[in-house]
């Protein structure tokens, strides 16, 4: 077996993943904290005010990274759900279910900050345009996944049922992303594009990209923390967990 594939197989084993994640965690949190602080300082203090929105545009530094994460986390959850459904890998079930609440939180922040920005800029807290509505549907999809997972008693069966819902909900992702191009919406079109010119001045763009990086790292840190806890619960009868607990308590039970 080639080494990469071997490592991949090893990664799927709960004790190995638990140890590896534990080693990465402090670094991930440190990187997320530092880049997040730099990005926020850059966005809220250093970046110049916008020529027509003045200082209220600064909410973009929270809103846009969270909005990107709401889509990214969903895609990550669905990909893991797919692996869990087809190959029945326990770790994928755990990863998919651990990412749902984080994604829901990012989606919620996106909706709230968007609403707070919309009131002074557009003149309304909420409107039923395609972008806002599809993002709200995304939040409900996350709630559905979390709810379904909690409603079924057998954890592994629950994870597979919820993974299926997550996978079906993927159709909403292109709708959220392209809604501003497909329909006339109140929400503006994309400012930052991976390919081609971004419609934002460089002095304002760098904190945004820094924060986008920080939120990604934070997501993986939070994900690893949550999956480690979930794995301990799921494998509580297994030898490696017992060894871990014994090492911590010095054999006292």
């Amino acid at each position, binding site marked *: 077996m080639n080494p990469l594939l071997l490592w991949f197989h090893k990664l799927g084993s709960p004790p190995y993943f638990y140890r590896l994640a534990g080693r990465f965690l402090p670094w991930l949190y440190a990187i997320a904290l530092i880049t997040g602080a730099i990005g926020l300082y850059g966005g809220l203090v250093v970046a*110049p*005010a*916008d*020529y*027509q*929105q003045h200082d209220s*545009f600064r909410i*973009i530094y929270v809103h846009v990274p969270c909005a990107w994460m709401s889509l990214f986390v969903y895609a990550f959850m669905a990909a893991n759900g*797919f692996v869990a*459904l*087809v*190959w029945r890998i326990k770790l994928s079930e755990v990863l998919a279910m651990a990412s749902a609440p984080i994604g829901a939180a990012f989606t919620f922040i996106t909706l709230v900050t968007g609403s707070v920005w919309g009131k*002074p*800029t*557009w*003149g*309304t807290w909420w*409107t039923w*345009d*395609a972008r806002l509505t599809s993002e709200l549907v995304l939040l409900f999809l996350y709630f559905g996944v979390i709810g379904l997972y909690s409603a079924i008693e057998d954890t592994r069966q629950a994870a597979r049922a919820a993974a*299926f819902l997550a*996978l*079906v909900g*993927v*159709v909403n992702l292109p*709708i959220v992303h392209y809604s501003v191009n497909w*329909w*006339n*919406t*109140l929400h*503006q*079109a*994309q*400012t930052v594009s991976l390919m081609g010119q971004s*419609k*934002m*001045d460089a*002095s*304002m763009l760098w904190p945004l990209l820094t924060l986008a990086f920080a939120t990604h790292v934070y997501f993986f840190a939070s994900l690893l923390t949550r999956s480690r806890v979930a794995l301990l619960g799921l494998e509580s009868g297994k030898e490696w967990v017992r060894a871990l607990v014994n090492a911590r308590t010095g054999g006292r039970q």
Partner: protein
Amino acid sequence: MTPTRKRRLIAVALIVTAVGIATGLTVLALGRNMTYLFSPSEVLAGNVPGGASFRLGGVVLEHSVQRDSASLKVDFVVTDRFHEMPVQYTGILPDLFREGQSIIATGKVENGHFAAREVLAKHDETYMPKEVADAIAKAKAAGNSQHQAQ
């Protein structure tokens, strides 16, 4: 890949594709009803059912805003640069409202003009510092005067 996994893979792929197609068709079918706004050209072409309430989108025509001095009544013209539509509104306008700004007004057509219940400002996707905006405006003005001089 074992036969069981292959079967699961095919089943999952089929269901996701089916849901995707179903959603795509629904969105296509809803296309007309999902129109958030109409442009003045579409309104004048009769695309909007008579007497119905709808959203009108466009740019506030330069030098068209007339404020009533005694009340909050505002008259202005919304254009998509092809056709124009006079709009009447009573109430407080959003901060970004001004001539040349994209706006979305909700209301209905009453004797030839659009009576708006709500006016929202649409923000575009460009962000820049004031200095850059001024520099661009200056460069544009310089370009225009050069153009006129020729």
